[in-house]
């Protein structure tokens, strides 16, 4: 693959070539090789040694939801300031604030973390580098962490296929009934000034009671709510205060017409998520946005559910000739790359293939050839070696899609970072206070123009 061509951007032809080369590399790598290093290798050709790094400390925020922040009994001495839009760092400005906050919350018996998470550090140090050329912005992240790239499975129990494994905060995992299994994720939320208070409060605007692991709303409560019915959603996920009549109550969603108006005016936060299982193996990074819910962009993602809703059976299984077996077993989790990829090692599920109790298939199929539209804008290359993750995310400049924040040369954007590692999801992440990224402009993190 021509490195210079890659650096120049991703035309549709080049994207197809890239996808094909990723699949080819994966197919070779998946034929029983353990720990191959071709997957996720940075193919941008950038000399990152010449790009300055900004060191950030991402800290564990626990259950510090937007509602908690505005509660005078909880966020003592700061609730009214939060409600009026003061920035978090107007108070949280100490040089070691993140380290101290995270350590406090995970000390044990802290009101913001009632679940025991022994051994979990309060913060993670991450280096961020940024660069751009005429076509793309490139973000490179490095942090020390475990190589968690598995995702929960469907496991056959002799009669049915049931979920096996789950994120660390889930009750069955906490009770030892299920193993902790979840993919590592690195996310960046972006705003260009159009989301009220994002510049001051960042991602906390999107974190609300009623969401999973934050005193979740029941299925019945959501089903009974007119706005959630209109949004066609069955649970509460990240949302912006502007999408609600009461910014601190998920039940007060605005009409779909009003939501459309807010979106058309750019009042949404872009959400770029690199996923260790569901996008990295096929060179992708999620593209979504947050407004009334946590939405995927238009088009098709790099991944799709592997469950047939009608038969309650998987849609695809491994091609034994290419993968070595038609399924995975529990003792193989974490031992090799167990990615089920259409066009590479996946074949239609055969219910008569002689399934045994204990056979497992991934909950998601990766679909590199199908990824399309706005949902497939971003690319991602992540590699883990000797305890260190190195992830490069490529975001085209000047996107014109109605569900994207266009990054432009000279622009400065408010961003929030989140890292999910440790087989965890939802609020179990490490996060940053709001930072700024300048594309060749003065900011906390400056993207350097490439030659």
């Amino acid at each position, binding site marked *: 693959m021509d490195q210079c061509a890659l650096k120049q951007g991703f035309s549709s032809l080049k994207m197809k070539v890239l996808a094909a080369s990723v699949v080819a590399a994966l197919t070779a790598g998946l034929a029983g090789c353990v720990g191959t290093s071709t997957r996720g290798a940075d193919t941008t050709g950038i000399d990152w040694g010449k790009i300055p790094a900004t060191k950030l400390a991402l800290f564990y925020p626990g259950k510090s939801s937007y509602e908690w922040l505005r509660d005078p009994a909880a966020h*003592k*001495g*700061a609730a009214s300031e939060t409600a009026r839009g003061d920035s978090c760092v*107007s*108070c949280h*400005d*100490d040089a*070691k604030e993140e380290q101290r906050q995270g350590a*406090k919350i995970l000390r044990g018996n802290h009101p913001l973390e009632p679940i025991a998470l022994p051994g979990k550090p309060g913060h993670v140090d991450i280096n961020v580098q940024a660069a751009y050329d005429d076509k793309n912005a490139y973000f490179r992240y490095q942090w020390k962490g475990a190589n968690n790239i598995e995702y929960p499975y469907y496991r056959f129990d002799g009669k049915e296929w049931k979920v096996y494994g789950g994120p660390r905060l889930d009750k069955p995992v906490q009770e030892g009934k299920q193993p902790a299994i979840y993919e590592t994720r690195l996310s960046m939320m972006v705003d260009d000034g159009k989301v009220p208070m994002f510049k001051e409060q960042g991602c906390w605007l999107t974190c609300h009671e009623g969401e999973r692991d934050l005193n979740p709303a029941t299925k019945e409560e959501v089903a009974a709510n007119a706005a959630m019915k209109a949004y066609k959603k069955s649970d509460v996920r990240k949302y912006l205060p502007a999408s609600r009549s009461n910014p601190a109550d998920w039940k007060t969603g605005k009409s779909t017409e009003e939501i459309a108006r807010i979106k058309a005016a750019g009042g949404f936060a872009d959400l770029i998520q690199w996923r260790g299982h569901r996008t990295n193996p096929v060179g992708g990074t999620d593209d979504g946005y947050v407004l009334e819910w946590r939405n995927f962009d238009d088009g098709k993602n790099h991944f799709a559910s592997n469950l047939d809703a009608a038969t309650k059976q998987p849609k695809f299984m491994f091609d034994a000739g290419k993968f070595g077996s038609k399924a995975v077993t529990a003792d193989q989790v974490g031992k090799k790359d167990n990615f089920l990829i259409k066009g590479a090692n996946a074949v239609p599920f055969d219910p008569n293939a002689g399934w045994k109790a204990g056979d497992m298939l991934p909950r998601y199929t990766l679909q590199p050839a199908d990824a399309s539209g706005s949902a497939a804008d971003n690319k991602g290359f992540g590699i883990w070696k000797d305890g260190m993750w190195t992830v490069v995310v490529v975001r085209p400049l000047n996107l014109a899609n109605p569900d994207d924040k266009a990054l432009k040369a000279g622009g400065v954007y408010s961003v929030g970072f989140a890292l999910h590692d440790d087989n965890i999801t939802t609020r179990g992440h490490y996060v940053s206070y709001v930072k700024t990224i300048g594309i060749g402009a003065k900011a906390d993190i400056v993207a350097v123009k490439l030659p």
Partner: protein
Amino acid sequence: MKRNVRPLVALAALCLSVPAFAQFDADAAENVFKENDCHKCHHATKAKKGPALKKIAAKYKEKKLDEKEAIKHMTAGQKVKLDDGKEEDHKIIDTKDVKVQTNVARWMLSH
């Protein structure tokens, strides 16, 4: 042998002249200060929600107030008036150890 007593005299004078509140463990005090989130309202030199430590120290010096007054302020949960005219209960420090409270007070008043 003659003894040079001048250094001893000077040292004695110094001990007598240095106020008691100058003796404190700064690192320990700052740690307690930050563990109690005091830094979120009080910066060393700039005004935040609460006055800067420098301003507090200057006020105490002018009014001849000592560390006991500072300790009272950090333990009694008294009402404090904010810039917008509203009142709030001042946060109470999370230690009943008088030695720790004294150390923090002395450090604050040293600004």
